[in-house]
């Protein structure tokens, strides 16, 4: 009896298991384009899809949102042929790594789509001469000043330092970084002092003949950021901790903020007193990063049998003025197109677009990610060395220059 039951049970287990096999869908339904995005862009993209459902006739869209950019990156790093997206809204500096991992597929733009963007924006999403997606929006920072403390925008870096030193007793710092961290956000400060990771020529190509001059940088650091005994004068903290709170509390007159956080300042009653970080010479401005986020085509699209649909979606949504306008009306960031500022929906975004228009440096991952030491690690280390550890600016600037030079050489050979 027991033996018979065992046989029956085997049969039952096998039947249930086979039923399970049959219940699994082999693939997602045909004609579905899967787009991955972060927690802010994803829901907004979903709204865009509900406003117009024929971006690519015959195709539906599935938007998958991740809680943060880091979560999105982690998911994409671990994506497989089956789970991966057809399109991903990603940072431009993901392009080299993702292309090397074989996760991105190149796209070629029609003249009509190409003319929407600047050469720099397309360059941001290219690796080894191949373009992997379309620019979506611009991420940049601007320097805001507290009009209750200073009446007008500073004309030079020295003006800001002078104001701070004259009012030091009531201030926590002179200029701090509230948005983008001590490498991405702080580029404007370092370029104001002459520390460029690279320069861009008028034709949009990288200038490899004019690397950072360590002597100039060391002299500027000593002049503007240090006291006569080589210690920090307190004008520029080496950390971004507390910057936002202190600026809002009126304890810091100048702060570098990101365009994505403008509404927080607006809510606190600040007006659009925004400019790039001024240079050391009066009337000049220092470049900050003006990078684009991109809608990138993945190699998974071809594996899922929707490559043509996904490419068409890229062109129709992000490569058309209609699509970009509709999307940025919801998203509220400066659109990545030549005339993005003209249809940015808020004064804040127009202000940031204006800052980007005055001076910005494209974010080239192949150079910045470096070979041994990346720009992202080197610049914060430089701030710590000269402002916290009190190391000699000349020595540290020389080390920084050597890293930038090596990264520039490696990046150019890699581009």
């Amino acid at each position, binding site marked *: 009896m*027991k033996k018979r*039951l*065992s046989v029956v*049970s085997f049969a*039952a*287990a096998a*039947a*249930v*298991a086979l*039923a*399970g096999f049959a219940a*699994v869908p082999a693939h997602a339904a*045909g*004609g579905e384009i899967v787009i991955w995005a972060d927690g802010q862009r994803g829901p907004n993209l979903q709204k865009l899809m509900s406003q117009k459902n024929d971006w*690519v006739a015959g195709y539906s869209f599935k938007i998958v949102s991740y809680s943060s950019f880091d979560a999105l990156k982690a998911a994409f790093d671990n994506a497989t*042929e*089956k789970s991966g997206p057809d399109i991903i809204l990603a940072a431009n500096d993901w392009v*080299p*790594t993702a292309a*090397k*991992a*074989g996760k991105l597929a190149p*796209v*070629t*733009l*029609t003249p009509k789509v190409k003319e929407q963007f600047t050469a720099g924006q397309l360059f941001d999403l290219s*690796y*080894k001469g*191949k373009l992997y997606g379309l620019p979506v929006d611009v991420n940049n920072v601007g320097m805001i000043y507290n009009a209750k403390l200073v009446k007008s925008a500073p004309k030079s870096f020295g003006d800001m330092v002078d104001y701070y030193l004259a009012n030091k007793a009531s201030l*926590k710092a002179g200029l701090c970084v509230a948005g983008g961290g001590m490498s991405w956000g702080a580029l404007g400060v370092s370029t104001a002092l002459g520390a460029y990771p690279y320069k861009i020529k008028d034709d949009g190509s990288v200038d490899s003949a004019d690397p950072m001059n360590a002597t100039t940088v060391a002299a500027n650091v000593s002049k503007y950021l240090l006291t006569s005994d080589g210690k920090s004068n307190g004008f520029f*903290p*080496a*950390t971004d*901790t*507390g910057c936002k709170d202190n600026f809002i509390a009126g304890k810091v007159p100048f702060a570098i903020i990101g365009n994505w956080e403008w509404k927080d300042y607006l809510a606190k009653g600040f007006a659009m007193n925004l400019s790039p970080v001024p240079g050391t010479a009066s009337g000049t401005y220092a470049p900050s990063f003006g990078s684009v986020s991109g809608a990138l085509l993945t*190699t998974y699209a071809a594996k899922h*049998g*929707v*490559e*043509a*649909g996904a*490419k*068409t979606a*890229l*062109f129709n949504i992000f490569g058309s003025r209609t699509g970009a306008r509709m999307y940025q009306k919801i998203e509220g960031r400066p659109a990545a197109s030549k005339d993005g500022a003209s249809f940015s929906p808020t004064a804040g975004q127009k202000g940031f677009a204006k800052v980007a228009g005055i001076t910005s440096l494209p974010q080239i991952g192949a150079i910045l*990610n470096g*070979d041994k*030491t*990346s720009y992202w690690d*080197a610049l*914060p*280390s*430089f701030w710590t*060395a000269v402002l*916290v*550890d009190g190391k000699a600016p000349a020595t*540290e600037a020389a*080390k*920084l220059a050597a*890293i930038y030079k090596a990264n520039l050489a490696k990046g150019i050979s890699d581009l």
Partner: protein
Amino acid sequence: MLVSVFRGKFALVLKLIFLAATSAILGLLAQHALAQGEFAIAIFLIFAILSINFVYLTSKSIPLKFFLPGLLFLLAFVVGPILYTLAMSGFQYQTGNILSKPEAIEQLIKTGVAQDPDQTIFDVTIGKNKAGEISILYLNTTTNVYAISTEKTRTIEPASGVKMNDFDVPSSSPNFTALTTDELGSLDASIPKLKFFYDGEYYLGLEGFQAASLYKQAIRYDEAKDQFVDLATGDIYKDNGRGNFANVNNKEQFLGSVGWRAPIWFEHYTKLFTEKRLRAPFISVFLWTISFAGLSVLTTFALGLLLALALNKAIRGRRIYRSILILPYAMPSVMSILIWGGMFDTEFGAINNLLGTHIAWFQNAAFARAAVILVNLWLGFPYFYLVASGALQAIPSELSEAAAIDGASPRQIFNKITLPLLLKILSPLLIASFAYNFNNFNLIYLLTGGGPIAQLDGDIAGGTDILISYTYKIAFNEGNSDLGLASAISVIIFLLVASISLYGLKKSKVLEDFA
């Protein structure tokens, strides 16, 4: 009553339902694994299905009925990852060497095309010609001639018969019928691969459904010789045995942007000890890991024991003190670490405010290490307070009473009787705590991120990095992650921790007692 539920036909039916459900779930997982080409996982799952059914439907081995779930989990989540890590440590597995070789070759061929110098691109409509072949209709803007291209032919289409759509793109002609959107969707898997004839040298490749560019193949793969030839320069790229096709005349020049995982056997292990760039940080991180784990155990044990001794006597409010002392243990450590991180902040931290100092705790290696030890003391002392309290109860009071009658001082009683007995009881826990702190990733990652790092000096390891956080950085570095090297370090960590654990087990005689 309860026993009857677990016996007889009812129990058998329950068992069968459970087995059927388990088999079905594992079967589903196996099918997913097969679909994704994960054959090792699929084989394991099928093995699990068979073994579960065999063990629970027969009476061949009663002990296995108890051990099997644990054994299967052990295989899946301990032995499997160890073997995988061990295998990966022998591969060139890093950014740029992620794919398998056939996948990399496929991508190199697909992306190894060149646009014409003018970067010509036409608006096209996809359809069928009179013969029913998939073709494209377009206006050749360079010659101002309408044409229909199939894979093998290109025919000129008289302008008079061509109809344009709303966007001024040719959409139909007497010899051409556009595909419907449904037809286009159903052909999406095949049409991006089509190469429409243009002029013999160049072909038209589709860019979505609405455009096509002029391309020509820039490289050719010779399968027999396993090499690529650059059709423009004649350069030959051969498998360099390290996961890339390299130019035979310039071994540093790789073809394309993708490579593959290639076996390099023990190179990562030898590199760790022969390459100065890796050896120096590895040794310093290793020494700090040992120091960190040792100091953590020492300080947490010392404070825990001190408090246990203090509260071992009947004093007023002892229960309240005990409850308060356990609080740091009850609070999630992630929260505690982040709060401590804020308290150590240079500008706004409570510690600098209280001390009236301006110490950059996390920017200086010595201060950062002190902070790490201090925070770990806060997190760890309640555990040793609890176990020491329990152990003190287990030491017969007669021993210390007898010693006191013989004239021993309290210090002598502690040094000669209490501490030796406590150490005998607690030594396995001390060793386990050492092994735990050896891999205390959370604390380091959340408190200091392994920093400070003197990146300007070319350092790749931070002042507070322990082996596991150092490995994490190598494995998941933003720009260039090296999973192969990280796997090799993981294997070394495994060997170290396994040795410590084995020593602990031996010391506590758990294995002998079990035997």
